[in-house]
C-alpha cells in the first residue's frame, strides 16, 4: 500500500509491522474476551445472567464429549444442505427460464419482489399449521430463503451475458442447447455462485430461527431449550458454535469456490477479445 514508508523502516520493524498486520484480526476477539472476564470479576453477575468464561468452555467441552453437539450440528447442517440444494436447483432452473425470456421476467417481477419480501421466517406460522413441526418445516424455510436469492442472481447473470457471444456461437452452427451450455451457463456462473454464497448465509440464519420454534433437534433447538433451564453457558456456547460454522462455511468453502469460478469464467469476454 504505502510502499515508501515500509521501505524506509528497518527490517525488524518491518517484520514486526507484518506480524501485527497478520495478527490484528484476532484483537477484537481478545478484547471482547477481556471485557467479559473483567465484567464478570467486577460485577459477579448471577450464573444465568452472565456465566464466567470457564463455564462456557466447560459447557462446550461437555456438549462435545456427550455427543450432543455433534448430533445437533449434524441435524442443522443436514437441513441446511437439503434445503439449500433444493433452493439452488429450483432457483437456477427458474432463473434460466425467466432470464432467457424478457416478457416472463417483466410479468413475474412484481411477484418475485413481493415473495422475496416475505421469504423465510415469515412463512413459519402458516407452514406450522400446514405441515407441522419437524424437518420438512425447516427445509421449506431454507428452500424459500435460498431460492429467491439464487433465482434473482441467476436471472441477472443470464441477462448480463453479452448477446454477441451467444450469436457468435450460434453463427458457428451451435444449436440452442449447446449455446446454453457453452456460453450462457459459464457466463452466468459467477453470479449464480455469488447468489449461492449469500443464499447459504441467509439460509443459515433462517434455519436457526426456524429451529427455535419448529424443530426437535439442531443448534437452534439446543439454545432455546437451554433458555428454559436458564443455562446461559449453553446459549453462549451455541451462539459461538453457530458463528464458527458460518465463518468456516463461508471463508473456507464458498469463498474459494467463488474466487476460482470468477477467475476461470468471470473473464470470458476478455479471453474472447484477446483471441
Amino acid at each position, binding site marked *: *500500500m504505502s510502499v515508501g514508508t515500509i521501505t524506509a523502516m528497518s527490517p525488524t520493524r518491518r517484520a514486526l509491522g507484518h506480524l*501485527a*498486520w497478520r495478527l*490484528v*484480526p484476532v*484483537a*477484537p*476477539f481478545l478484547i*471482547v474476551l477481556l471485557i467479559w472476564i473483567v465484567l464478570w470479576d467486577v460485577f459477579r453477575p448471577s450464573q*444465568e*445472567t452472565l456465566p464466567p468464561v470457564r463455564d462456557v468452555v466447560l459447557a462446550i467441552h461437555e456438549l462435545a464429549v456427550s455427543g450432543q453437539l455433534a448430533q445437533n450440528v449434524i441435524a442443522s447442517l443436514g437441513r441446511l444442505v437439503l434445503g439449500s440444494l433444493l433452493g439452488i436447483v429450483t432457483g437456477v432452473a427458474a432463473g434460466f427460464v425467466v432470464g432467457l425470456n424478457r*416478457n416472463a421476467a*417483466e*410479468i*413475474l417481477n*412484481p*411477484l418475485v*419482489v*413481493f*415473495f422475496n*419480501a*416475505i421469504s*423465510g*421466517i*415469515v*412463512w*413459519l*406460522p*402458516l407452514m*406450522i*399449521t*400446514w405441515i407441522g413441526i419437524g424437518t420438512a418445516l425447516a427445509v421449506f424455510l431454507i428452500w424459500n430463503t435460498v431460492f429467491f436469492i439464487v433465482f434473482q442472481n441467476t436471472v441477472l447473470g443470464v441477462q448480463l451475458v453479452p448477446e454477441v457471444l451467444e450469436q457468435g456461437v450460434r453463427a458457428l452452427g451451435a444449436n440452442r442447447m449447446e449455446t446454453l451450455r457453452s456460453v450462457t451457463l459459464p457466463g452466468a456462473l459467477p453470479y449464480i455462485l455469488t447468489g449461492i454464497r449469500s443464499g447459504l*448465509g441467509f439460509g*443459515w*440464519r433462517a434455519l*436457526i*430461527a426456524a429451529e*427455535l*420454534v419448529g424443530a426437535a433437534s439442531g443448534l*437452534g433447538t439446543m*439454545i*432455546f431449550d*437451554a*433458555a428454559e433451564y*436458564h443455562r*446461559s453457558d449453553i*446459549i*453462549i456456547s*451455541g*451462539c*459461538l458454535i*453457530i*458463528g*464458527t*460454522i*458460518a*465463518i468456516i462455511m*463461508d*471463508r473456507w468453502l464458498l469463498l474459494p469456490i467463488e474466487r476460482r469460478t470468477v477467475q476461470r469464467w468471470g473473464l470470458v469476454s476478455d479471453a474472447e477479445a484477446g483471441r
Partner: protein
Amino acid sequence: MTIANAPRAPARLPLPAGLSVAARQLSGVKILIPFVALVAVWWAIHAAGQFPERVLVSPARVWDTLVVLFSHGVLAEYISTSMSMIGIATAISLAIGVPIGFLVGSNRYAARGLEAFLRYLQGVSGIAWLPLVIIWFGFTHTTTLAVVIYTLVVPIIFNTMVGVRAVPEHYTLALRSLGASRMRLITDVYLPGALPSIVVGLRLGMGYGWRALIAAEMLVRQGGLGDLIFGARTSGQIDRIIGGMALIGALYIIVDRLLVQPLENLTIARWGVLRK
C-alpha cells in the same frame, strides 16, 4: 413482439401528455396482473378443494378479516408497534454504527482487525442471541429492540468502514495541503465520500432487521405483526396468518421502495460522482 413494435416506434417520439399518463396507468396495471392471477388461482384451489377452515380460507375471507381488524383499531396497533420498533432500531443503529465505522475506517489496522470480527457476528444471527437476551430483559420490547439493533448495526458499521476506506487518498491529501482541519476533512471528504456506502448498508441492514424483528416478535409476543401471525397460529386463524403475511410483505416493499431506495438513488446521484 419485435415485428409488432417496429411500425409503432416512430409514432412514440412526440408522446402527447395524455398518452404518457395512459402508459403510466398501464404499467401500474401491469404490476397488478400477476397478483390478480395469483389470487384467482388461490380462489380456484379453495373452491375446488373444500378445505377445512383451519387449512385454507378464501381471499375474500382474508380481506374481510383485515377489514374487521382494521376497523377495530387492532391492526393499526400491530402495525405501529412493528414500524416504530424498526424506526427506533434504525435510528439507534445509525447513531452507533456510523461513528464507529468512521473511527475504524480511518485506520487501516483497525479496519482489518474489525472486519473478521464483524463477519463473525454476522454469522451469528440476532435471533440466536434471543434466548440470552430474554433472560436479561424478559419478554419486553427492550429484548426485541436489542435483537433488531444487533442485526442492523453490523452492516451499517461494515459499510461505513468500507465507504471511508474507499475514499481516494489524494482527496484528503489535496485538502490537507490546502490547510483543511481534521473536522473539515470529515465533513467535506469522508462523509460525502462514504455516504453512498452508508446508505447501501442501511438498506441491507433494514432488510435483515425487518426479518429479525418479525422473528423476535413471534417469540417475545408483545405486539407487532410477528405476534399477530404467530398468535393466530395457536387459535388456527389462517385468515389472520395470511393477511398478516401479506401486510408484512407490503409494508417492507413500501418502506424499501418508497423510502430507502429513493434515498439511495439520491445519495448516489448527489455524492456517488466522487468516485469517478
